[in-house]
């Protein structure tokens, strides 16, 4: 039956996804809750101006923005929460084919009237729903706290944009991991490559930010298109969002084609 893999993936993963969502939401809530007042933020902004560029770049910080609630929240939450989301992406990407293939479960699935492409596509779609759910829970949690904060104000629209901005990059990591898993066939190898991709992308972005001479390298990193630390100040860059989503879809297409053609479990 069409959609059975999609629904089953959601059924089995909803609890884990809820924990991820609550964990990420708690981080956002924590950042909002610890901000004392706007005056202190300005002092904090002055302080970080003295910090080395490399350290600021590590979380995508901008000293001028850090004196504002938007800048501080972007720096303290969106600047590094993408690493957490990317970890979720690697875990999810391995679940698309690698885990079941590695454990020998795929033989049972492939003996059913189930086209291989449906396994890849339906699972990916289930993870799209889960990523959206995580972003939604995070948005609602932070928004509720901000509404009740006497010292901290954030534009609801910008906060929504910031949370939405997590989605394309996370989907890209899921798709990349799924593609690698279908190409290399070994779960542990795929996990290693995907983790390297995430970490290397992060550091390429950091190095590109901190040294103008190698700034062009940032184009190779999905973090530069994510640009989470500035999304609350400057708004979402729809071109980057669409670009990341197109690449994610192409990668899932590649994963589907590779899985369709090759031997499984060899």
């Amino acid at each position, binding site marked *: 039956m069409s959609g059975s893999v999609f629904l089953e993936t959601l059924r089995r993963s909803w609890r884990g996804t809820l924990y991820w969502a609550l964990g990420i939401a708690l981080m956002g809530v924590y950042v909002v809750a610890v901000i004392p007042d706007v005056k202190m933020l300005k002092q904090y902004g002055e302080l970080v101006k003295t910090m080395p560029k490399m350290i600021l770049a590590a979380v995508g910080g901008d000293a001028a923005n850090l004196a504002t609630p938007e800048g501080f929240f972007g720096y303290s939450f969106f600047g590094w929460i993408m690493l957490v989301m990317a970890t979720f992406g690697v875990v999810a990407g391995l679940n698309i084919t690698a885990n079941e293939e590695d454990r020998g*479960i795929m*033989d*049972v699935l492939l003996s059913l009237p189930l086209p291989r492409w449906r396994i890849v596509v339906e699972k990916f779609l289930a993870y799209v729903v889960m990523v959206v759910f995580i972003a939604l829970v995070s948005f609602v949690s932070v928004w509720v706290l901000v509404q009740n904060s006497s010292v901290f104000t954030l534009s609801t629209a910008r906060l929504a944009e910031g949370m939405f901005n997590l989605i394309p990059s996370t989907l890209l990591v899921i798709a990349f991991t799924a593609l690698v898993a279908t190409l290399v066939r070994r779960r542990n190898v795929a996990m290693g490559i995907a983790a390297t991709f995430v970490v290397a992308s992060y550091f390429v972005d950091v190095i590109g930010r901190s040294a103008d001479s190698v700034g062009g390298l940032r184009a190779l990193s999905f973090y530069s298109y994510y640009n989470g630390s500035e999304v609350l100040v400057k708004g979402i860059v729809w071109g980057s969002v669409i670009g990341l989503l197109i690449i994610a879809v192409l990668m899932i297409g590649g994963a589907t084609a590779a899985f369709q053609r090759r031997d499984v479990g060899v």
Partner: protein
Amino acid sequence: MSLQTAIQTNHLTKLYKKGKPPALDGLDLTVKQGEIFGYLGPNGAGKTTTIRLLLDIIRPNSGNATMLGMDVHSQSIELHRRLGFLPGELNLWDNQTGQQVVNYLGRIRGRLDSAYVHELAERLSLDLSKTVRSYSTGNRRKLGLVIALMHKPELLILDEPTNGLDPLMQQTFHQLMIEARDEGRTVFLSSHILSEVQAICERVAILRDGQLKAVERVSDLMRVQFHYVTVNFRQPVPISRLMSVPGVSELSADGNGLKFKLAGDLDPVLRAVNDQYIVDMRVQEPSLEEIFLTFYGNDVKTTPHQEPVKELVR
């Protein structure tokens, strides 16, 4: 393609690594609809490779195969609706209950006959409410059998189906297979347990080093070949009395008795000892396993087709 053919392979070949011998080498095999067909061979002979090729889990380097008249690759989805499969090593989702696994796989199939699932579980004494993690090896096999049988497929492909099942459950399994055959369904089972094949299969294929060595009716196999003979005399008889008798081999003395393997008629043996008083004589049929071992001990190369077994074992 005859409508009577359940499985047909044509020069099916699978090579996993270049430079290594093929895991399956030019397999030509025909399984008829409505029979229980045994697929025999030691570990590494190519049994599981054959099954995975038939299920389109892996793809052949050359050759092709059809099942129920459909190409195993291009028509795999339609074909898989009509077959049930039990892998040799059944791995499932450890944190799911047997019932959840059955429900999921049933939904993929598009239909689930809950009453029949519970009937199967009851016959196999399987508690579906437990998680897969808590199942013993035998219970996992039972769950695998429920999954393979629950949609009453026309063709069953079972890889080492009774591995881990206790003797009572093996009997139940045999009964289920016989019922399936009586309903006109086909069973293709791989095994290295010859007594099982002997008990339920009509025909067997013997695979070795990726090559089909023989296909024969089990009843014919049991009729041909040799016997084990024990003759007890009133007094010791030297083994030299039977050494030159045609067909006698593996000759040994045991007290007043002589034991030997006889490939041929009994009359020359009796004539050779006609001056001795025979107290007792036992003629024992060899098991299929013994035939099998004799077969494997023979290095005669054969064309992989019907009827070579008689020549080989004699």
